[in-house]
């Protein structure tokens, strides 16, 4: 019952190849096998949203996907959001500027979710932002600062003055 498979996939733009137990979910594979611990594992049954990553550009819960299912696909984790020189993604910068995190546990999931959302909704309303992150649980901020950060990031990404 410890069946494993060798998989190849692209993670944050890099070609990766590794062995994984078939029952291992993608979040554990990213953290344990590839050492990308930015993806957080919270509830492990698809409720909290902390493990959200982008698969082929779509936000998915990495605990509800097996690592073997990611073979041949492109995965982006929170580590892949900033530029190579360390410049933060506009969303990350906005989270810093607007206190969009306290303990930071939900942040990787918030960021990856909002990357897809803002790409589709460049000028969202506050209500739309709240709906977009309704699948991500934060126990520190009360969400207001996260929503403010998302709206500021949307302005920055559109090129409006902040």
């Amino acid at each position, binding site marked *: 019952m410890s069946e494993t498979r060798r998989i190849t996939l692209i993670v944050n733009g890099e070609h990766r190849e590794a062995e994984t137990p078939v029952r291992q*979910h993608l979040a554990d594979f990213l953290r344990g096998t590839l050492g990308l611990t930015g993806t957080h594992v919270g509830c492990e049954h698809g*409720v909290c949203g902390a493990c959200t990553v982008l698969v082929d550009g779509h936000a998915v*819960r990495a605990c509800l*996907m097996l690592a073997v*299912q990611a073979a041949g696909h492109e995965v982006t984790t929170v580590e892949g959001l900033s530029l190579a020189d360390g410049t933060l993604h506009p969303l990350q910068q906005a989270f810093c500027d607007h206190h969009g995190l306290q303990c930071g546990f939900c942040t990787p999931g918030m960021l990856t*979710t909002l990357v897809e959302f803002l790409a589709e909704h460049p000028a969202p309303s506050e209500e739309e932002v709240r709906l977009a992150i309704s699948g991500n649980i934060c126990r520190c901020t009360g969400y207001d600062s996260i929503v403010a950060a998302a709206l500021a990031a949307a302005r920055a990404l559109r090129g409006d003055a902040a």
Partner: protein
Amino acid sequence: MKPAGFAYHDPQTVAEAVALLGRLENARLLAGGQSLMPMLAMRVAFPDHLIDLNRVEGLDGITVEQGVLRIGAMTRQRSIERSAAIREACPLMTEALTHVGHLQTRNRGTIGGSLCHLDPSAELVTVAAALDATIEVAGPEGQRDVAIADFPLGFMTPALAPEEMVVAIRIPLWPREHGYSFMEFARRHGDYAIVSAAALLVLDSAGRIARASVTLGGVGAAPLRVTTAETALVGEAPTPALFRAAAACCEGIEAMEDPQAPAWYRQRLAAVLTRRALERAWARATGEAA
């Protein structure tokens, strides 16, 4: 919260998947995984074999042809939600999907998975029942059609043999000028509804109700059509009083009870949501609501 061990299979064709189902003992199909993966993690499901449908060709896609909408079983809920063709031809489904889970789960969740998981409150099953859908099922003997009315055998039990799988759903479209509404009450957005109501209305040239569909989710073991309400509506001139009377039919329906809500609460919700859904559907049929 780690799944117990299983053997993993990823067939490329429906025929291979069906052959695996026939050959393997205690096998489960993995579609979008948004229900099965938590069940594996919490170890309420213990398959020896997992047959992943995500690499099977030809199972996704949306077509509208000759008054029939056909959606492949592995079509993601998000693709359905975003489909302009469905928004135009079958807006009830688009509206219902806004209540299904969250962005992240709709990106993976599939319509076939929702149908086969058959949660009593599942929005897509309620919509399928409201629209008299037909389920296309593949098995070792070939393909067969199952009417949605015959699809649930009981609580979370679809009418599928162990070696069968759903490949698509077909929905006969309502006339373009129909009114529709999907409403639900849930404790939090994205949760399964405690009760949901779907209503569809077509008015004749005199403004009377020519055709009506009223469906409740979350009340019985599977979504149910309230035929008494439909009968009360057809042939009548739509008025708030008529909708109140039709909705009152829901109060007598035997409702399930669980820690979330007692039966009487579900019955009351069913009547209120049905009345509101009918009023919204009417407003849309007359062009007074978007």
